[in-house]
Structure formats: C-alpha cells, structure tokens
C-alpha cells in the first residue's frame, strides 16, 4: 500500500471536491440564467485581461527584486515584500485610495494631470499587481536560487557588471521559471476580491464601462439574488479559469525557454 500516494490523493480531493460540487450545482440543480448572462462573461473578460496585465507588471517590476533576494541575503527586505500578502486585502485597497486621494501631495498631483485610480482600469490593475507581487516574488525567487551561480561568476569575471550579468546571462536562461511564476501570479490576481472591491468595485471606463470584476460580481449576485445566480456564475468562472490555466500550461510545456 503506497501510503504517501493515498494521503496525497486525499489532500488533493479536499481541494478538488468543493470545486467539482460547485460545478455540478452551478450547471445542475442551482442553475440560473443570470449566472451565465452577457454581464457575467464581460466580468470574466475584465478579470482575465486585468489579471494578465497585473502578472506582466509583476514580471517587469519585481523580477530584479526576486533575483536580488536570491543572491543577497536580506531578511528585512524579504519580510517587507511579503507585507501585501500578510495583511487583509481590503487594507491594500484603502491604502491605494488614500495615496492617490487629494489627502496626499502625490494624489493631488495625479488628479491635477487627470489620473484617477478609483473605479478605473488603472486602479484595478494596480491593486491586482500589489496583491500578486509577493506570490510572484516567492515563486520565482527559488528558481533564481537554484540557478548555477557559476555562470554568473564567470560572466562577472569576464568584466560584466552585475546588471549586465542579470540582463544578459540570468534572464535569457530564466524563461521557464519566470513563466511559471507569472502563471501563479495571474491565478492569484484572478481570485482577488478584497482590495478590488474597494478600489474598483466596477470600472467606469470604456470598453468596460459599468463592468465589475468577476469576483465582485459573484459577491453582488450572492448579496442581491441569492445562491443560484452566484453559484452558476461561480461555475462559469471556474470553468473558464480551468480552461485558461490548462491552455497556458500547454503553451509553457511546448515552449523551449
């Protein structure tokens, strides 16, 4: 008897069974047309696009930081980078609103040049990027740590600066690790609710005018309509998410990075 396999299957079942039940209920006994209306698909579209952009921003902004942590022990820095993951996410939403509000000089400047974060696409991706950043950093950090430092030392010994070594030696050999971490960050962003319910409960900009992100919409349906529409919309969201994640992993597997 392979006990490790048995325990692993039971652990996996704990995660999978609720999802399967939700799919069954959402497309079966509790199915409600509101749950698969045009509004729901627009919300899912907004969530997918904003999450993908947030993941791309995580890669662009936080990859150097993750590499720095991998090669320089900095416990304080690593602890600080974990803050967005360890505080209630509505706090992140509130913090964003305070920073960009007329209460701060920075906020007054932004508003003076017409940049608004509240109920905008910009506010949405900002919140998603911040909450996904710790997940991205903690996912790609071990990959950088596992990379053979001999390549970097060799490059440094050939006169390359640390920045050039990062750009020309580390990054070109990090595609797979970065892609995997970005998929994890995107998954995290797609499931975010707390911060975006404060910053961008709905987006008041074209082409998503009046559209709420999917997690917010599902919460609205639960609050206003009850279980049926919420469960159906959840089932639709789960199905789309599973398809997207499988497709992305197939792309990753077939990509020689």
């Amino acid at each position, binding site marked *: 008897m392979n006990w490790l396999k048995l325990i692993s299957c039971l652990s996996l079942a704990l995660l999978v069974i609720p999802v399967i039940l939700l799919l069954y209920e959402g497309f079966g006994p509790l199915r409600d047309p509101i749950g698969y209306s045009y509004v729901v698909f627009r919300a899912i579209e907004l969530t997918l696009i904003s999450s993908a952009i947030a993941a791309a921003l995580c890669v662009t902004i936080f990859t150097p930081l993750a590499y720095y942590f991998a090669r320089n022990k900095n416990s304080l820095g690593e602890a600080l980078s974990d803050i967005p993951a360890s505080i209630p996410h509505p706090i992140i939403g509130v913090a964003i609103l305070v920073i960009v509000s007329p209460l701060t000089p920075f906020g007054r400047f932004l508003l003076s040049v017409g940049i608004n974060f509240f109920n905008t696409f910009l506010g949405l991706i900002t919140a998603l990027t911040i909450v996904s950043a710790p997940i991205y950093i903690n996912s790609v950090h071990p990959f950088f740590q596992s990379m*053979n430092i*001999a*390549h970097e*030392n*060799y*490059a*440094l*010994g*050939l*006169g*390359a*600066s*640390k920045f*050039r*070594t990062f750009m*020309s*030696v580390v990054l*070109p*050999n990090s595609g797979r690790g970065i892609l995997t971490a970005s998929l994890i960050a995107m998954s995290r962003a797609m499931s975010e609710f707390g911060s975006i319910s404060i910053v961008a409960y709905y987006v008041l900009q074209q082409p998503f005018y009046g559209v709420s992100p999917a997690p917010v919409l599902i919460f609205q349906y639960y609050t206003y309509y009850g279980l049926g529409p919420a469960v159906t919309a959840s089932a639709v969201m789960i199905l789309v998410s599973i398809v997207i994640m499988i497709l992305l992993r197939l792309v990753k597997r077939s990509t020689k990075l």
Partner: protein
Amino acid sequence: MIVADVKKRLGDFSLDANVSDERFICLTGKNGSGKTTLLNLIGGILTPDDGHITLNSKEITNLSIERRQVSIITPDSCIPHLDVERHLVWGAKNKGLTIEHDYIAEIKTSLGINFDGKVRKLSLGMRERLALATSLISKPELILVDEALSNIDNHRDFVNAFRNLAAKAKIDVIFTTQYPEDSSQADHQYRLDSGRSTRLF
C-alpha cells in the same frame, strides 16, 4: 604577479595561505584542503577575514569580482544560451576591447575549438575549452582555473597550448588539478594541506 596572503574561516575549516608568484602556477592538494576556497578569495567570490591580495601591484582585496581583472573558470563556467562564436568574444566586448580575428583564430586552433552551435548543447570538455578560450580573448590579468581541465582530452597538449597562449598574452594563471603530471608543466607549484599552503617550487 599575484600576491595573496589571506586567512578565512568557514565553519570548522580554517584557511591560512600565501601565494606569491607569476606566470603558470599549479595548486595541488587533497579534496577539502582549501584549493577552491583560496581561488574564490582571489577571484572575489569570498572576502578574506584577514590579509590582502594584490595583482600586478594593484590592491584588489576589497574589489568586486567584475573590477579585479580576474577570470574564474570552473567546470560549469559558460553562458549557456549563446552560440560558440558569440561566446568567444563576449568577455572582450564587455570590456570594450578591439578583437583581432587572427588572435581569435590562433586561440581556436591552439585549444581545439573546431565546433559550433549552442553552448548548452556542447559536451563538458567542449564547454571547458570554450570557457578557457573566452577568458584568454577577454585579456584579464589573471585566470583562475578550478578543476576545469579534467574533462579535456589530449590533456597534456591542451595544457601546454593554454600555457603558451597565456604567457604570450602576459596573463598569469593559477590552476588546480587532479593530474599530478600537470605540475610538471607549471612554472610554480603550491600544495595546500588542511588550509595551509607550501611552496614546492
């Protein structure tokens, strides 16, 4: 000329070594005797607890790796995603050096680099040849070779060719080896024993 008089403690291991010579220097010793630690100190990967390192009369003890003009080569040294031709000139281009094609051709011929393609697809011996050639072309003042000759066939001829190329370019070399006969091709030999160095010749 390299002058390294350094002390370093790593856990229970203590290094107290002195190397003061030039040209082709062989470093021998059993596993765990401190050869890699000494090379890492000279190369700037580790910082000595005490002591100093000078290279051609320039103090380099506290300089970062990229500013020491010291190239460090181990069996894993390479830039995997490059192809052979770009790899050969990568270091020289970093330093803004003018590369003479005749010089590159001479090095390729002498070190048996008659292959091409992506570096990550080369055998270990090919990568070691390429790493050594790339270092020579980048013209450092010192090349440290840590067990990076062990997978090269025609070993004796290769070491001889590498020695001649380094001497011609006035590059000092410190290399560690598992082959006792390599020391006969060196200008000087040091032996490390439990972190203590002895100059044999």
